[in-house]
């Protein structure tokens, strides 16, 4: 069964190279990408079932034992996120193919889309699976370079401007990541995460804290937490809808995963970092949603809600309890699905109206009632209306926060409640302006030559089908909420005790589990 571990990384990379070879045959590229991502999804699902039954699985690449070689590690947290991300990637791919087919064969830059997309999925999978800090950096780079290409695909004016912000910010984060890896190596002499977790216990408290906070800054930029988020609402909305959808759903969550993994494994139970996380979480929630309230562009409203809801995951992590972490894991799963779905719907809305400006849209519920339903369900879920998945995830987090009982934890719960209400207001504003009111005139495609056609009355069945599938997937989170919460709780138990991870990677290491466990 250990062969399952490298598959989510290797399959898309192989697929990407073959996809480059058949660059002139659009149909072959499409079939290949879909088959590869189905393979990844099946492998990830099998891996999750296996890991849940047998515990953490490890593969030492090239047969080199752990501290010397690179390890791939799948525990319940990474396997769960792998399954969700593979599903989301597949859905968005189908949507993108639907859009491409409907808009006619525009060869040129679009031949690069499929290879880049597969490389992106390989990078995401590697970031979830790797057990090596430097390999994590490489995974981020693989993912980011593919995302640079996808974001600037077509090279229009707005995209180049936004792409510049995105690339420079990501590059700065990468330089900081290399810096902090160098510092960890200087302090411990290893970049294997399990090995570093053991050796960091002997490092003086102040050095540990400095390393932990620097790492929080690095992954905080990638996860777009307050005050490091301003690049996100600027760059995401300019890309074509499927690209924005997959970025919104996955890229920031990879950053969140990296924060969870490094903080729990390398710097477990640090009071200071826990408090910093709680404060930052509360501020991220409130500041992000306040940004969403003043926007006119639907995609920008949604981009600010991404920022805002990252705060919930930080809050769950900051509690450093099993319940808090389980809530954070569940919230991450819910948010990946719901945010992707909303951006897919926003793409359909833009296609229909010809614009994503709220002021210039109106009356869409009369023209496209199905679209209205597709928007309303994930929007209410994002705001946390029962019985949708957002409510399930939030109630777990809030219960954990109240059980903690500290001043910061309770204030974060209050901030979370206020943010939920403001989210409802933000998505409700989109609803009243775009779907209610008199039917607005369709705006003509301002940039007819680019990759995306807008202002078309007909919605391609493949795009609609993918969006419906995403909404159904989101609803199924509610249906399986019980077992899923159980799984998230088991994942949290794995994560909160670094000993589980360390003994899986380095068998026979005497691990005083350290100050992990409840704070």
């Amino acid at each position, binding site marked *: 069964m250990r062969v399952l571990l490298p598959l989510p990384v290797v399959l898309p990379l192989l697929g990407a190279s073959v996809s480059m070879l058949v660059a002139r045959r659009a149909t072959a590229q499409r079939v290949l990408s879909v088959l590869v991502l189905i393979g990844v999804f099946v492998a990830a699902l099998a891996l999750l079932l296996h890991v849940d039954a047998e515990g953490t699985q490890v593969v030492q690449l090239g047969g080199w034992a752990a501290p010397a070689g690179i390890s791939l590690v799948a525990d319940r947290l990474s396997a769960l996120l792998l399954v969700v991300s593979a599903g989301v990637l597949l859905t968005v791919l189908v949507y993108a193919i639907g859009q491409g087919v409907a808009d006619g064969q525009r060869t040129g830059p679009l031949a690069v889309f499929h290879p880049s997309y597969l490389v992106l999925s390989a990078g995401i999978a590697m970031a979830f699976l790797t057990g090596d800090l430097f390999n994590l950096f490489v995974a981020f780079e693989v993912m980011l370079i593919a995302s640079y290409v996808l974001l600037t695909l077509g090279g229009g*004016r707005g995209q*180049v401007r936004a792409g510049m912000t995105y690339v420079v910010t990501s590059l700065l984060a990468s330089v900081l990541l290399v810096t902090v890896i160098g510092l960890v190596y200087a302090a411990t002499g290893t970049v294997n995460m399990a090995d570093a977790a053991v050796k960091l216990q002997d490092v003086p408290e102040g050095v540990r804290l400095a390393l932990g906070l620097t790492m929080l800054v690095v992954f905080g930029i990638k996860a777009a937490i307050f005050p490091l988020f301003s690049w996100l609402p600027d760059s995401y909305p300019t890309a074509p809808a499927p690209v924005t959808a997959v970025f919104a759903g996955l890229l920031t969550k990879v950053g969140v995963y990296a924060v969870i993994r490094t903080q729990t494994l390398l710097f477990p139970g640090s009071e200071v970092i826990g408090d910093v996380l709680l404060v930052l979480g509360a501020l991220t929630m409130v500041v992000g949603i306040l940004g969403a309230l003043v926007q006119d562009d639907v995609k920008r409203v949604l981009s600010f809600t991404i920022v805002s809801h990252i705060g919930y995951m930080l809050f769950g992590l900051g509690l450093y309890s099993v319940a808090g972490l389980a809530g954070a894991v569940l919230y991450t799963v819910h948010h990946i699905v719901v945010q992707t779905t909303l951006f897919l719907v926003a793409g359909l809305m833009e296609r229909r109206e010809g614009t994503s400006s709220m002021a210039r849209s109106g009356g869409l519920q009369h023209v496209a009632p199905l679209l209205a339903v597709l928007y309303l369900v994930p929007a209410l879920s994002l705001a946390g209306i029962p019985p949708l998945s957002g409510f399930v995830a939030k109630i777990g987090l809030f219960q954990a926060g109240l059980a903690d009982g500290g001043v910061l934890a309770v204030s974060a719960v209050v901030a979370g409640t206020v943010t939920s209400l403001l989210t409802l207001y933000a998505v409700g504003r989109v609803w009243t302006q775009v779907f209610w009111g008199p039917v607005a005139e369709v705006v003509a495609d301002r940039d007819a030559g680019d990759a995306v056609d807008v202002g078309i009355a007909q919605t391609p069945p493949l795009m609609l089908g993918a969006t419906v599938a995403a909404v159904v997937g989101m609803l199924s989170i509610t249906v399986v909420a019980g077992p899923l919460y159980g799984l998230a709780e088991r994942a949290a138990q794995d994560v909160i005790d670094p000993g589980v991870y360390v003994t899986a990677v380095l068998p026979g290491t005497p691990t005083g589990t350290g100050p992990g466990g409840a704070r």
Partner: protein
Amino acid sequence: MTGNLTLALLIGLLYTVGTYLLLQRTLTRIVIGLAMLGHGANLLLLQAGGAAGAVPFVGRTDGPAGDGTADPLPQAMVLTAIVITFGVSAFLLALAYRSWVLTQEDEVQDDVEDRRVARVFALEERRLAAEAKARRARQAEYDDDVSEPGADGSSGDAGRAS
């Protein structure tokens, strides 16, 4: 662990220059600044590997900092990081060139939509302020109207009384 002071000073210098250049508004300077920061980070990785060692041949153990060869792992990591920085820098330069072709400007541009939202709100604020001012003016006029008939009335009363 022994370190190399020259290297440490150089790393500091590269980070300083890189940070300064990154804060400029010109795109080419930002690109060069990022390259500087990247070099600084690479040297830091190298420095993290400890002192230089002997040439890795069998029988040679006379390194400058004592016995043994240098730690090869940071060197491998630096090599990987250099390749990645190289690729991304090439992409960034291409992007900067594309931006120059499109706008004929070598400057970082503002977030257009953000500026628009800010402008809309500034206009709204001005409109509200103007409305409030007009309302105050009307109120003042009304107050005058109210007080004047009052004055007439009192004089009228006085007239009737007389």
